[in-house]
């Protein structure tokens, strides 16, 4: 048995600190950035900077969240093969509480009216008549109709419930996994199984509703029944890719001796399969809206494809997240090849970051979008943060679990 612990080397640590410093400086500089040309500087709320923060907050929290989901899935289904890489997806899931705090801060800033990414957070839009009896020019009947769902009390109850319950599940899984290392036996295994199933039930509902609350409500006049799944699939593929890239990194550094080609192959299959799941949902959402051709629904794609000039980005996202993974990962050898997996994984991660960008930006900064220093700098900062959190968690526990009941089976995993 290989009990080698991962050492978080100073070199890696300084790289992540450097990235985080870049991110922090970018965010600070971004808030000193004035409004774009033609926008009244008075009362300017740094929409672009907040929108970037939302893109990154959501995308990276999704990685931690869906790693937790994947972990719960493995427990609930009593999966054996993945036990050898269990510590890796556990470490990726450790970003969830951090991401939840960041997400909470970003949404809270909206409620405090520091930004107005969410139109419905403005209390004026649901007031029909002004106090003097004249009609309110800001009144928005669509938002007023949705007030039952988007009132601050219900919204905050939901938001806090998602973030807290998800994080508690994640912490519980992690704690029990470390206990199992010392204790052994099957008691913890069965407990994890039950909790995993419970998480999946909770997540089945909240994965969709959280996407409606934080992402779809940016386009509050619009709705799509596919949106929750589409956002979920996008987060899932990002999480699977992060897990696979972390495994490959550790293999490259000489850790994880017990992980063989078949484990890598299976993770590659996951990456391939979830890419397809995302493409399927992405296309279905588009096709249903395109076919029915109802103005309330087509506005979403009209804004993106024609109105605000996201046509190029939409196609880029399609190619990066569907065409490249499909062609490059189709063969068996590619799913076992380090270079192929790293290249495709990087393409997929960037592609899905751009996908979240396409969800947020057309609804917030609209036509005034650039992939400039603010976007890239902030994203680098978050990359540094997530790498730091993952690697710190990896270093805290043995890289191979010690006493999982299916450990032996996983070490003999073939195909």
């Amino acid at each position, binding site marked *: 048995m290989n009990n080698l612990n991962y050492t978080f080397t100073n070199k890696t640590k300084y790289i992540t600190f450097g990235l985080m410093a870049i991110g922090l400086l970018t965010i600070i500089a971004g808030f000193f950035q004035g409004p774009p040309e033609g926008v009244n500087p008075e009362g300017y709320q740094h929409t672009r900077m907040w929108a970037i923060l939302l893109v990154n907050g959501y995308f990276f929290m999704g990685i931690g969240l869906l790693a937790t989901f994947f972990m719960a899935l493995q427990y609930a289904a009593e999966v054996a093969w993945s036990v050898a890489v269990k510590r890796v997806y556990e470490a990726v899931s450790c970003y969830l509480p951090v991401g939840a705090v960041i997400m909470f801060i970003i949404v809270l800033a909206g409620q405090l009216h520091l930004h107005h990414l969410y139109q419905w957070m403005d209390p004026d839009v649901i007031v029909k008549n002004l106090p003097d009896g004249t009609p309110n020019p800001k009144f928005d009947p669509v938002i007023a109709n949705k007030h039952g769902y988007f009132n601050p009390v219900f919204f905050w109850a939901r938001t806090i419930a998602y973030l807290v319950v998800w994080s508690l599940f994640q912490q519980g899984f992690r704690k029990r996994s470390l206990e199992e290392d010392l204790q052994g036996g099957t008691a913890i295994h069965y407990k994890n199984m039950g909790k995993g199933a419970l998480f999946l039930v909770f997540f089945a509902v909240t994965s969709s509703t959280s996407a409606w609350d934080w992402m779809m409500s940016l386009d509050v006049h619009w709705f799509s029944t596919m949106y929750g799944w589409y956002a979920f699939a996008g987060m899932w593929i990002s999480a699977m890719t992060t897990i696979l890239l972390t495994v490959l990194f550790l293999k490259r550094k000489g850790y994880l001796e017990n992980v063989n080609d078949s484990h890598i192959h299976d993770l590659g299959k996951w990456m391939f399969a979830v890419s397809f799941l995302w493409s399927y949902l992405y296309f279905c959402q588009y*096709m249903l809206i395109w*076919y029915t*051709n109802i103005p309330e629904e087509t506005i979403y794609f009209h804004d993106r494809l024609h109105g605000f000039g996201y046509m190029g980005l939409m196609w880029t996202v399609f190619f990066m997240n569907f065409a490249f993974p499909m062609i490059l990962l*189709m063969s068996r050898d590619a799913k076992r090849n380090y270079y192929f997996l790293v290249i495709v994984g990087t393409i997929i991660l960037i592609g899905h970051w751009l996908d979240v960008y396409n969800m947020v930006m057309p609804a917030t900064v609209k036509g005034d979008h650039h992939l400039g220093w603010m976007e890239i700098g902030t994203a680098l900062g978050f990359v540094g943060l997530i790498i730091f959190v993952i690697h710190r968690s990896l270093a805290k526990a043995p890289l191979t679990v010690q006493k999982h009941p299916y450990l032996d089976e996983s070490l003999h995993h*073939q195909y």
Partner: protein
Amino acid sequence: MSNVTIHAIFDDEEPLLASAKTLRSNGISIKDVFSPFPVHGLDAAIGLPRTWIAICAFIYGLTGLSLATLMMWYMMVHDWPTNIGGKPSFAYYMNMPAFIPISFESTVFCAAHGMAITFYLRCWLVPGTKPKNPDPRTTDDKFMMVIETKEENRSNIESMLKKDGAIEINNSDFKYRN
């Protein structure tokens, strides 16, 4: 010098794999293995070349995609353009989203059926063929390795098989094709 066919029966996959490796490392080629279920790693152990079925599947898939595209282009654009849902079919690419599901289904259909038919033809599992399995126990809980060799090597191979855990060794004149 006459040829002989050795049928070695195993009751577990582990000795079977071990035995296959021993024989192959001694330069003895294995004709075939009959097994009640797929044994992981057996293909490589008995020295079968990599299967071409994946490449065949890819080609069948492309065929299905092309056929579907041709069919829909002919029916919906060329021969009888139809205005469905306010989308007159002036060009194939303009109505592309509507054609994607059919292209996908046709690709999968052709790839799956093509693979199955290729498999049946390659194994010659067609109506009226005689069973090629020399021992019905291999459909239940036994594994059988078939080795074709010269009479002079027989005792050597048999002792190697015994050592690796074969529970039964028969000489057979069972003739099976391919």
